[in-house]
């Protein structure tokens, strides 16, 4: 599965994107957040106020942290959007 990062998330994590192999029990957005934080101290730090982090699954915005990620090819993580 591909993970992509934008804006200050990208900058603070120091990566644009990565391909990860998730364990079988990482089934939801919330599971993914926990897995990322456990994996890496920088992620744990950046995800400290994780409530504001926005998620898109296969390029669709997903607000439900309980949403399944089982069919996801690409998950994006980013701050609140400031377009326009």
């Amino acid at each position, binding site marked *: 599965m591909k993970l992509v990062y934008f804006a*200050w998330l990208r900058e603070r994590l120091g990566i644009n994107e990565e391909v990860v192999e998730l364990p079988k029990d990482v089934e939801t957005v919330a599971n993914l957040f926990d897995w990322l934080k456990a994996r890496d101290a920088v992620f744990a730090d950046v995800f400290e106020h994780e409530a504001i982090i926005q998620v898109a699954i296969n*390029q*669709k*915005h997903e607000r439900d942290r309980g949403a399944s990620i089982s069919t996801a090819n690409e998950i994006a993580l980013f*701050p609140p*959007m*400031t*377009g*326009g």
Partner: protein
Amino acid sequence: MIKPYIKTQTEDFDIEAEIKRLTANNKNIGAVVTFSGLCRDEEGALSALELEHYPGMAEAEITRIAEQAIERFGLDGISAIHRYGKIAPGENIVLVVAASRHRQAAFDGANFLMDFLKTRAPFWKKEHDIKGKEGNWVDAKDADDDALSKWDA
């Protein structure tokens, strides 16, 4: 079936040409509203905004919102062009054009698309100050979330 014209690009846009794109083949359009969003210099403090976007999702989200606007307001055409990359004060950032038989639909269509684009389209702005230093990422504004409430059916 009216299809929105949606683009993300680094270069500036031509408002006159974008209006023509919607009106050229439809002489029953009586009203065209354009919105252009420009980079402000924040009383001289800002040298540029840098816009980052999520290619693919950006176009898809704006298209989705634009299709809602066509349906809801009965538009005869709608376009949106959103720039990314570095943009200097006074330059254009975003353009929305809405066309309809009657004026209120055109106003509402453009206003609706802008309100949703502000908080739903995956773009992020970073400020560069006049000393050339990269500055802060612009925070999302509560006022932009509040603006959406006027469209609650």
